[in-house]
């Protein structure tokens, strides 16, 4: 079968295979042999002075996962407003696609060249931005991550939308109240590998162990991969397989919207309760038409504002990124840094028929 044209190619192939196998035998650098060199690599030796005056005239750049994404537009607007009040200036840059990691890296590089004072970034990927962000920090730029963190060593602080524990437990509490703490429930998540989803689900399961929930039973977890169509089909499947299902928790904005869309067009509308994490704009019609009683999410505008305050506090030397340091964030109140420089925004906001019209995002 090997034609003359194929023979040299086959020879090259064979050579490469044997080379690879020879190298395997010699061992080499494996995942196990590499210690996590990022953990705690960023040890700041500067001392925080909580009474240092707040600097003015700084430039803080917001770098969201994706520009023109409604969620980040609201978050960054919150940052812009806070910076204006603090007497500093704001700019926003970012890629058009939420998976363009190389785009995000080149924006960090550009901001480093432009010598901004602070970068507030929502990382598409925990590792990809590291080299670029470390370079930025070496050039004196303060780096705050918001919404989505990088590896700990690659930023000064992380402004977290809400503690994973609070988010996980509160969704179960929300559904428990709606169901009178009785009945079968299911979870509709995003991807099976999504770290944040799985952390929340872990806390949900832990919350369900409390005696109050003894009559509530989690029957299954389905995965819609943050795809509207797949989530829609998964909802349909859940209801067919579990005819006695009383409630669904979907801790993803895509999932809860798709589930609400299915429920509102089916005989389960108003009978099967749905809650989880969603945006008011997505969920408004389902709250108004009675499909959904209440769901929750953090307020992205506050998230952006807190990131702005944290950035200015870092530049002013009020905080350096270590556990226990505190700073004032205007009308948002006083915040204390937790483990690994994490700042929690606080409890999520619950949206229902009474308050949903006050939020536009």
């Amino acid at each position, binding site marked *: 079968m090997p034609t003359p*044209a194929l023979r040299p190619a086959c020879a090259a192939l064979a050579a490469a295979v044997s080379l690879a196998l020879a190298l*395997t035998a010699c061992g080499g650098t494996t995942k196990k042999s590499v210690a996590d060199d990022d953990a705690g690599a960023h040890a700041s030796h500067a001392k925080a002075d909580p009474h240092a005056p707040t600097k003015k005239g700084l430039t803080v750049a917001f770098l969201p996962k994706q520009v023109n994404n409604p969620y980040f537009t609201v978050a960054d607007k919150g940052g812009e407003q806070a910076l204006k009040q603090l007497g500093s200036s704001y700019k926003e840059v970012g890629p058009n696609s939420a998976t363009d990691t190389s785009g995000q890296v080149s924006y960090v590089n550009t901001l480093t060249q432009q010598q901004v004072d602070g970068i507030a970034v929502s990382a598409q990927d925990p590792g990809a931005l590291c080299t670029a962000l470390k370079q930025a920090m070496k050039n004196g730029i303060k780096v705050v991550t918001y919404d989505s963190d990088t590896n700990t060593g690659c930023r000064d602080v992380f402004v977290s939308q809400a503690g994973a524990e609070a988010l996980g437990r509160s969704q179960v509490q929300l559904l428990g109240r709606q169901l009178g703490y009785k009945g079968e429930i299911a979870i509709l998540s995003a991807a099976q590998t999504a770290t944040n989803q799985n952390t929340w689900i872990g806390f949900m399961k832990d919350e369900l162990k409390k005696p109050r929930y003894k009559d509530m039973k989690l029957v299954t977890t389905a995965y819609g991969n943050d795809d509207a169509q797949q989530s829609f089909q998964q909802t349909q499947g859940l209801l067919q397989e579990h005819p006695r299902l009383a409630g669904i928790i979907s801790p993803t904005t895509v999932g809860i919207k798709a589930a609400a869309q299915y429920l509102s067009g089916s005989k389960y509308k108003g009978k099967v309760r749905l809650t989880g994490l969603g945006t008011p704009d997505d969920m408004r019609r389902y709250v108004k038409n009675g499909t959904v009683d209440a769901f929750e999410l953090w307020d992205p505008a506050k998230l952006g504002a807190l990131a702005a305050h944290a950035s200015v506090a870092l530049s002013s030397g009020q905080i350096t990124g270590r556990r226990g340091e505190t700073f004032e964030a205007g009308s948002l109140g006083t915040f204390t840094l937790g483990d690994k420089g994490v700042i929690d925004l606080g409890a999520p906001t619950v949206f229902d028929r009474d308050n949903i019209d006050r939020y536009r995002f």
Partner: protein
Amino acid sequence: MTDSALVRAVRWDTVVGALLLVLLLLSFAFVDGFGNALNLSFLIGSTLPVALIALPMTLLVVSGEIDLSVASTAGLSGAVMGALWNAGMAIETIIPLCLLLGVVCGLVNGLLVTRLGLPSLAVTIGTMAAYRGIAQIVLGSDAVTDFPGRYLDFAAGRIGGSFVPYALPPFLVLLAVAVLVLHATPFGRSLFAIGANEEAARFAGIRVKRHKLWLFTATGLLASATGIFWALHYASARYDNATGLELSVVAAVLLGGISFDGGRGTLGGAVAGVFLLGALQNVMSLLNVSAQSQIVVTGILLVASVLGPRLARRIAAARTARAVRAATALPHAS
């Protein structure tokens, strides 16, 4: 006579090279933050993946073929690299295996084109989707970021405080090899012949199919090298790495004056095109031009680069025709 000599001297690839030089000089003089070593290393580092794939792509396009699956091959190599790393295999083994995978991807393209006689555009649009799909099956939505520091530093670092990324010297070696192959060997010259007229080349005794198979295989190999570099450069192996890179490569090669009808172009032009687009992007970012406007500028530049050489050739042809007409008309007038 002097007209056509001038037209021949002002070839499109020299025009692109001159444009690149002008852009660099202007940026050094007028753009804040452009001229320092750090920024230049950023510029080169982010342009290298496009440049690397542009080398075999130029040879392919000169011979009248194209490979649109390169970015997917790069993504697949990155994904396999991440999966094997997670499985605990040594990186020194993973890298040759991934290169081998690239060779296989290229061979598949090459065999489909040469054995089944399918058009490469159709074949590689198909494998573009297939390779990307396999990448997603292999790694899912996982992102592998914990590669060994030495390798990450090689892919993202620069030599001392200079503007030269560690990865530049190996690229220059590959570039020299590609230039020699295309412009100084019988193999390279036969590629021009194949691109200009495949039938004639075959009758002239050139082994068209074998040449093309080699080209596709080399393209696969360099695409997977790019995928490995990409994953290390951005410290992130994901199935969607390098999405859309094939378009950047095709755009840069087109801008460099490589004719998509085959048979015409130089590697110098292609590399000038790659770096012209890269530098333009860098400068526009520094000047706060939005991403959307950058795309528009790049698009206009590409249309101009297709129109430019054709227009020049048509004007030259029209002038010669007029000169001939004038020459033949004169005796009648007198």
